[in-house]
């Protein structure tokens, strides 16, 4: 390992600009002559729009335009799309209602987009928006997933009972048979609470139109600018793909919420041509709460069947997934193919069956949020496992060990083929780091102080590095999920790496450069990573689903292979040797069996000056590209152990110790990987203890600010103990697995398992707020009083 190569904790190249305030986020950009956009949003959760009178607003000072859904329709601008087709059990396609970027005749949630005002200043745009007269016919609303289907409140004409799909996976007959013969059956009703992603940088957009070239530019904090361009061109019809440039510069966090193609960005780029000026919009935090795609929101009944010997026989799950008022870009894939295939967890389970109904409600659209389906699945599995162990009187660690998968590859009954892992190793290491043996003593110490101590496990697995394009295509995806890379070697030997991945906190500018430095033997400072601009990078699928290492870096790896192969041809001419005798190692081309060598930089120069070979023999230059399509998901797995101390008098839960042991395969930069675990755990703890988006019955979002929606703060979290085990991933050249989402996937179950352990098995819903924990603690103290 070199000091800047694979496996080194290299300090991040990107940090210089971020610690000095010289990063460039979209809202930091100013275009000459830019005008400001403001959106008039629906105050009602569900209403017909009888009429919109924009004339008073248009007469206000500074106003350049007031645009509505009618204007979009007149310009034949298409609606927003959902890019993953799900078929119901009966074979019918999902019921996708129209999703116009500005409302056409109806609004379906609070915050829905009614009109856009463009003015000289933001203040003028806001003032003018208040002058727009909208005549609403208010309709009844439904917000809860469990009530949507029987509510009699049709939100979309295509789905009168608000059911988007009734989907299933697995062998129902085999599962029913296993349950019939079970020694013990565990039954749980679980809610996976609705979350708001909340990257600290709000969304933003600057749309520009150049009449001279009839082309558009959109600056927007996107996790996948090429996909945004594709959708805006091919489906929404803003401009042909080659006439639209999408730039995602520095992006202040995403967590999934910046994958999607939203109304505001779409309308800004379209409006730039209408008003003949750059149009800038920056989301405020309240708007982000209202309109960024939310996450999770499942209502689930789950059952586990266990045999005489403590072996799991089957799992049966029924879930209603709240998809919100419209189908967001990848909404349909999250509670289906990113959820049910993970229900086998780390366990050898012969039979699994899962039914999922996706439903419309009068709430913000729900889509992928860090983990996307996999936290929901892990919560189901790890709650079932923990409760079952307690009910059959077996130590939860021992119960897990008894059921772990031991041989790989392992085919689960729900699609996935796990390629590698060692679940016993991560459990053993976690038990040691957490001092599980000393837990009983610590519990007694807590009890002496009137506190309840509990310990909870989460033995999670996830599937990421999404995924072989043919496979996802057969499951309904509208796109392939490969990644592209281009390695441009300059004549002086410095290198630009162009990647279709996008970094918004993950540190790609460093880790991708480490890969290049390691394989080509060049200093890391002579490598620049270029991303996030459709005019620079030809195409890319972007960053989400923990895919940038396994898929994005594999594409770079493949391009480097080609650079080395071409370099060998050049080196053969330079050193007057046979190409087959050229070897490349540590930044040097050598001729086997001789002391002849040529440094990488010298060969690069020779490739460009092209004096040693003719153009007929070899093309000049040293620039290679690659598209890499993964051959499987990667399957990171591990064990997180949460230890809590509950104060039964206040309901306050203190996390006293957090132990995470993860197997991410080969680590490129352990410092960055650990940082990803820290952040993921914080979001998972947030879900378990603090966060929850709450709509009242009329559809008003009660938690629409940081005053009402509790984000985890420094004081809410402990210092985290992070350990690693390693089984290299066999399905990509680097042996890496995704690490970005694991913490958020593992954490919620660990927290709830710990709290319920402390409370003597009393179940508790997320978020386990002090009030909820206090009530549970009182019931646990006086079991009779609860009846």
């Amino acid at each position, binding site marked *: 390992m070199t000091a800047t190569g694979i496996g080194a904790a290299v*300090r*991040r190249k*990107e*940090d*210089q*600009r*971020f*610690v*000095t*305030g*010289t*990063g*460039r*986020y979209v*809202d*930091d950009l*100013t275009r000459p002559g830019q005008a400001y956009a403001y959106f008039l949003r629906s105050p009602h959760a569900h209403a017909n729009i009888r009429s919109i009178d924009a004339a008073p607003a248009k007469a206000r000072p500074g106003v350049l335009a007031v645009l509505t859904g009618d204007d979009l329709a007149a310009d034949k601008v298409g609606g927003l799309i959902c890019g993953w087709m799900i078929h119901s059990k009966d074979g019918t396609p999902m019921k996708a209602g129209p999703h116009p970027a500005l409302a056409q005749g109806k609004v379906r949630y609070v915050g829905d987009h009614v009109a856009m005002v463009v003015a000289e200043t933001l203040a003028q745009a806001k003032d003018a928006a208040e002058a727009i007269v909208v005549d609403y016919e208010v309709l009844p609303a439904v917000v809860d997933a469990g009530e949507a289907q029987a509510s009699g409140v049709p939100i979309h004409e295509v789905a009168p009972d608000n059911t988007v799909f009734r989907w299933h996976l697995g062998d129902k007959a085999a599962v029913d048979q296993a349950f019939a013969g079970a020694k013990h059956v565990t039954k749980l009703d679980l809610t996976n609470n609705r979350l708001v992603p*909340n*990257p*600290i*940088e*709000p969304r933003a957009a600057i749309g520009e139109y150049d009449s001279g070239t009839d082309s558009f530019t959109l600056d927007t904090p996107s996790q996948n600018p090429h996909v945004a361009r594709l959708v805006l061109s091919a489906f929404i019809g803003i401009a042909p793909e080659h006439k639209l440039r999408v730039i995602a510069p*520095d*992006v*202040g*966090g995403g*967590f999934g919420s910046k994958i999607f193609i939203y109304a505001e960005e779409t309308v800004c780029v379209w409006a730039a041509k209408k008003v003949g000026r750059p149009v800038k919009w920056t989301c*405020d*935090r*309240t708007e982000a709460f209202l309109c960024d795609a939310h996450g999770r929101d499942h209502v689930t009944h789950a059952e586990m069947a266990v045999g005489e010997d403590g072996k799991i026989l089957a799992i049966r799950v029924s879930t209603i997934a709240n998809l919100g008022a419209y189908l967001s870009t990848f909404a349909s894939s999250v509670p289906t193919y990113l959820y049910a295939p993970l229900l086998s967890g780390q366990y050898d389970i012969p039979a699994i069956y899962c039914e999922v109904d996706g439903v419309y409600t009068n709430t913000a659209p729900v889509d992928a949020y860090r983990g996307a389906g996999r936290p929901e699945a892990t919560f189901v599995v790890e709650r079932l496992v923990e409760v079952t162990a307690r009910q059959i009187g077996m130590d939860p660690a021992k119960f897990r060990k008894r059921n772990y998968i031991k041989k790989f590859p392992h085919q689960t009954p729900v699609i996935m083929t796990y390629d590698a892992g060692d679940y016993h190793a991560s459990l053993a290491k976690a038990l040691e780091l957490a001092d599980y043996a000393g837990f009983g003593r610590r519990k007694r110490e807590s009890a002496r102080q009137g506190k309840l101590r509990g310990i909870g496990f989460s033995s999670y697995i996830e599937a990421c590095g999404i995924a072989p394009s043919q496979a996802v295509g057969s499951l309904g995806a509208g796109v392939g999920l490969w990644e592209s890379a281009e390695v441009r070697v300059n004549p002086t030997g410095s290198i630009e790496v162009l990647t279709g991945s996008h970094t*918004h*906190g*993950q*540190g790609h500018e460093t880790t991708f450069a480490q890969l290049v430095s390691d394989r080509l033997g060049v200093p890391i400072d002579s490598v620049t990573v270029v991303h996030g601009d459709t005019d620079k990078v030809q195409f890319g699928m972007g960053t989400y689903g923990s895919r940038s290492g396994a898929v994005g870096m594999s594409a770079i790896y493949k391009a480097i292979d080609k650079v080395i192969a071409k370099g060998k041809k050049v080196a053969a001419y330079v050193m007057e040797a046979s190409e087959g005798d050229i070897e490349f190692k540590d930044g040097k081309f050598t001729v086997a069996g001789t002391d002849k060598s040529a440094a990488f930089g010298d060969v690069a120069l020779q490739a460009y000056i092209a004096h040693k070979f003719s153009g007929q023999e070899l093309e000049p230059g040293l620039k290679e590209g690659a598209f890499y399509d993964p051959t499987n998901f990667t399957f990171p797995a591990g064990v997180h152990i949460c230890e809590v101390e509950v104060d039964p008098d206040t309901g306050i839960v203190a996390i006293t110790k957090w132990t995470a042991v993860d197997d991410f395969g080969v680590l490129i930069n352990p*410092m*960055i990987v*650990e*940082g990803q675990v*820290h*952040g*993921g*755990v*914080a*979001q998972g703890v947030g879900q378990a203890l603090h966060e929850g988006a709450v709509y009242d019955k009329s559809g008003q979002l009660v938690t629409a*600010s*940081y*005053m009402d929606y509790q*984000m*985890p*703060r*420094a*004081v809410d*979290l402990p*210092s*985290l103990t992070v350990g690693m085990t390693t089984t290299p991933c066999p399905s990509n050249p680097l042996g890496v697995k995704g690490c970005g989402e694991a*913490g958020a996937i593992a954490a919620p179950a660990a927290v709830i398992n710990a709290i319920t352990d402390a409370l003597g098995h009393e179940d508790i819903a997320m978020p386990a707020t002090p009030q909820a924990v206090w009530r549970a603690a009182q019931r646990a103290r006086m079991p009779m009083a609860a009846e």
Partner: protein
Amino acid sequence: RTLLVQFLRENLRLTGTHVGCDTSQCGACVVHMDGRAVKACTILALQCEGAQITTIEGLANGAELHPMQAAFREHHGLQCGFCTPGMIMTAVDIVARQGHDIDEHTIRHELEGNLCRCTGYHNIVKAIAAGAAAMGGPVAQAAE
């Protein structure tokens, strides 16, 4: 009615000071006013007349990073970088009030006004402890 943060970002084009919320909760906009940390979203530009304002852009000594900036980089105390300017300005203020030897508990409590969604705070806490120590190191003392 111009807020300090608007004045900095829009009039002076000092865009290192960020806006992450509209309720003075996130702390992305923290700057120093006469040496004390303030949230630039909750103070009018007019109120700052005659005051000395330091933003993240003014913290480094030329090309040499301030010890707290260096500590954030060294300890991976940032990921997306959006909350970072506010975090660093808050951290320098914590050291000014609490000294150079600050324990984890104090740092976590002192960060009550700053949100980070990326790091889980783990490395921010480490960075601040290290930055605080470095600010009290031989170089800093010699300069005083």
